[in-house]
């Protein structure tokens, strides 16, 4: 069976095997979500009241509901705010300057790096 995050809840060993196969351990829920974003199938978890949040999550952070269902994120959201980062943390050293934006993606906002080589995207 799978839980609301779509991860196996009774198959922990398989998750650990997956982790061993990677250079870096995967974070259950989060990495599946990243993979879905990359595949163009990004989603949010939405409670019956319509509050969106991002996985891994078992409780709606706004209302406490434990009934969370996947709903698609908008493929092209509205930029609510952005910044150009010139002084990055070390793991972004080769990327600076880069644009980080907060985007309204439908059920929830998403924070991310805006890349000029994405379809339809541009540098801020």
């Amino acid at each position, binding site marked *: 069976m799978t839980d609301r995050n779509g991860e196996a809840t009774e198959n922990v060993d398989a998750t650990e095997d997956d982790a061993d196969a990677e*250079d*870096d351990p995967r*974070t259950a829920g*989060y990495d599946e979500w*990243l993979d879905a*974003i990359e595949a163009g199938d990004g989603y949010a978890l939405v409670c019956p009241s319509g509050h969106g*949040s*991002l996985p891994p999550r078992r409780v709606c*952070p706004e209302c406490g509901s434990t009934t969370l269902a996947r709903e698609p994120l908008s*493929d*092209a*959201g*509205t*930029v*609510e*705010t*952005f*910044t*150009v*980062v*010139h*002084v*990055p*943390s*070390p*793991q*972004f*050293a*080769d*990327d*600076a300057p*880069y644009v*980080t*934006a*907060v*985007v309204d*993606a439908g059920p*929830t*906002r*998403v*924070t*991310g*790096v*805006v*890349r000029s080589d*994405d*379809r*339809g*995207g*541009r540098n*801020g």
Partner: protein
Amino acid sequence: MTDVRVAGVGLTRFGSHPDRAGRDLFATAALRAFEDAGVAREDVEALNYGNFMGALAEHQGHQAPLMAEAAGVRCPATRYESACASAGVAVREAVRTVRAGDADVVLAGGMERMTNLPTDEVTEGLAIAADDLFEVRAGVTFPGAYALMARAYFEAYGGGARGPRARRREEPRERGSERVRPVPPGGVRRRGARRAAGRGAAAPLRRLSDHGRRERLVLVSEEYATAHDLDAPVAVTGVGQRTDRLALADRAHLARTPAADDAADAAYAAAGVEAADVDVAEVHDCFTIAEVLAVESLGLADRGEGIAAARDGLTTADGDLPVNLSGGLKAKGHPVGATGGSQIAELTRILRGDHPNSEHVADAEVGVAHNAGGTVASAVVHVLEVAE
């Protein structure tokens, strides 16, 4: 329920002390606080210690016992961590402990050592106050997060983003066109050694400074102050703390700080005062936009008016409501886990009349201190009053 008095304060000089261990800095401040308070070290019943990034900066976890021995106190010692609000939270818990009658004397404060690290490592260390999965891996730095808030504020209320890159939400051709990746190309594990250039850290913000410091307060019950004939005229009359969603994107407002709104309401209610009663304030201006948001949350300026408060002279040293007579975080440095305590220490001196800038508020009776963690996922507000 007892009144809580600030019996004494001790601070080390703001600035860069890359060669001094945190425990040594802490001990210096603590001894000064005891001397100022006239309280015997053996009377201390608890040490509340704020620190954020000591595990990174000094490779030292479990710092509270270390600081207790450095300060020469034998009592339960606990480290509080709420990012940049660590010391404010430590003080709030000290106030609650005294008020509850669990202790008559508590030593509270914080220490942060930062200037021993290169800029990129400090940037990384500060960034972990944000959501690692959904912000840090999406390129958010601490200055970057406040830049996101600044641009949202400018778009909501006007007042700043005038660069050529500033786009307005009302321009429809810019909408619906961005694709955003939660991770950078190449993943998140690559490391580099690029140092900060002399430009802005994250548009639209520009860089000023950041340093290290530590400070201590001795908080006592009113009964203890009376019994020991202490000169402790300043009381902590109200405290409020609130928590918001960790990630900025998950907040109700990108251009407001709701946790600080609510923490201020709680502190004012506990003290029985209103924003209009406040004579002087110390606010968490780790970035200029942070002071704007703070004075609005404290009710010292209306929504959208905080941006003009300093320019119009309201909050300058000679204004009706001086903000940050200590110099504020940007001027004196922001040792993140110590800042909240230093605000209360300086506000105590301002109200006592022995601060170098007390002359600007000679008749002040009510002061408020606003301390924020991360992008204000944590907020703690203290009301201090001259009690006698």
